[in-house]
């Protein structure tokens, strides 16, 4: 195992229903890196996560995840699916949700912490994760009563509680307001460094997380490119990817504005904008 790499694809093609979603993708994400997975809707971001999880075999090329075939190291991957906020009536504490991420799949009931060193260690690990994501103040409240940002922090703690080496977050910022998007991105970067975990984060908009990223994977037009944020989110790279002239403008605060993509970034709001 080349221990510098967490995820590597070479000449990879992923297909769904016989049609390739993307093809000829080469990429390398190093251990401990924070990478964003970007691209328009339907370009294959979630497909990429499915490949990494070993749920979707490649139709061509090769993939290595944590030094083995995809799926072989499934236990070392923490996964936060796209979602999903909890119903307001869900009467289970955030703390319990994190604990379920640790041993929720086991049969039988846990022994009380007073009787079992293993239960004490588990409870300690849960508290450690709650502190790590800064959820101590509200971890004892019912999960349904928390805000989207608070729920998202607890879900990240849940995904981290088994000490994964690779963390896959599918659009964790989607339901959050701008300030919370930045705060959660900063938290993910901090975890990336302190826990030495590699993070792949699927996002719609790169700007709230731009300052924290080591790498960017960009899927569009049946292809995928990987590199540093400045390399990938640049006029020449995106023009090559889309096969159309694209400009990337930098605002005075460092935000990037992509001009000329076939699909405008606000695409998914357009349905609501055209009401009667």
């Amino acid at each position, binding site marked *: 195992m080349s221990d510098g790499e967490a995820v590597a694809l070479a000449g990879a093609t992923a297909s769904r229903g016989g049609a390739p979603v993307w093809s000829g993708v080469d990429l390398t994400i190093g251990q401990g890196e924070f990478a964003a997975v970007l691209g328009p809707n339907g370009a294959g971001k979630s497909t990429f996560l499915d490949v990494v999880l070993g749920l979707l075999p490649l139709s061509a090329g090769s993939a290595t995840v944590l030094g083995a075939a995809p799926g072989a190291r499934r236990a070392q991957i923490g996964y936060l699916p796209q979602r999903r906020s909890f119903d307001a009536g869900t009467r289970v504490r955030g703390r319990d949700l994190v604990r379920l991420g640790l041993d*929720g799949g086991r049969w039988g009931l846990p022994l009380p912490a007073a009787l079992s060193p293993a239960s004490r260690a588990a409870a300690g690990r849960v508290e450690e994760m709650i502190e790590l994501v800064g959820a101590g103040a509200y971890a004892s409240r019912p999960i349904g009563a928390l805000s989207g940002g608070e729920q998202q922090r607890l879900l990240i703690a849940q995904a981290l509680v088994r000490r994964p080496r690779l963390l896959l977050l599918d659009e964790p910022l989607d339901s959050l307001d701008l300030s919370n998007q930045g705060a959660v991105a900063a938290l993910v970067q901090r975890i990336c460094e302190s826990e030495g975990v590699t993070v792949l984060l699927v996002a719609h908009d790169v700007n709230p997380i731009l300052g924290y990223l080591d790498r960017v994977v960009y899927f569009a037009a049946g292809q995928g490119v990987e590199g540093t944020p400045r390399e990938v989110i640049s006029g020449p790279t995106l023009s090559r990817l889309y096969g159309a002239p694209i400009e990337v403008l930098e605002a005075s605060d460092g935000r990037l504005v992509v001009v000329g993509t076939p699909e405008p970034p606000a695409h998914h709001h357009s349905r609501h904008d055209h009401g009667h």
Partner: protein
Amino acid sequence: MATELAALSWNLVGDFEQLTAYPFMVQALEAGAIVAAMAGAIGWFMVLRRQVFAGHTLSVIAFPGAAGATLAGLPIALGYFGACGLGALALSLVSRAGEGQLSSESAAIGTVQAFGLGLGFLFVSLYGGQLSGLQSLLFGTFLGITAGQVQTLLWIAVAALAILIVLGRPLLFASVDGAVARAAGVPTRWLALAFLLLLGMAVAATAEITGALLVFALLVTPAATAQRLTARPGRGLALSVLIALAVTWLGLAIAYFSPYPVGFWVTSLSFGLYVAVRALAGGGGKA
């Protein structure tokens, strides 16, 4: 009711001796405790999983099952448990993705509920149309419990609760956070089926005591009250069982000293407690 003998006094020991002077009353208290433990625990998961409609459907199916068994000369328990078991299997087949969530199918299930009630009414009429038989099937036979029934209920409750203890943690995971549980390798579909069968057992056992229509006094109300009071799973389960037990025993005791039926007291007590907790704890409640 033995109202002509029973007179409430301030002597609690004396009252308790009066209450337990007759075997039928002791058996009612025993059966009530067994059923309360089962309904309280399984009901807690039912409320958490938002499967109250499935529970209601099973309780409606219990009625024609019991009436049919009476008509065919079979043990009435066989009717309750058979109908609820088959009903649970059927529900898991029709429910979306086998997870027991009933949404688009709810109209279809509503029509089956109505048909089930009609069928039960037919069976009772064919049996001789005795009103007392119909009434006990719908509203319970608290005071007609035999020692043999108590024994059977005990074994069923022990088995159901043992299964619940084994399945409890993954079931909680699957109930609260299905997508992540599935991704973590929890067999959510099998758990959903197993839970519907457990729910069927709990409904059948409770219906045998409270009648088909009053099942929810023990299956829903204590669980809903407990979830208002605490968001901690262990405490919530324990509290749900305790509330179910308290309303059952208190209901039996009050009914013994009053002219009104047990079913009325049990439902009123659990309803009153729920309303009080809702009013006091407010909308959100605390942890």
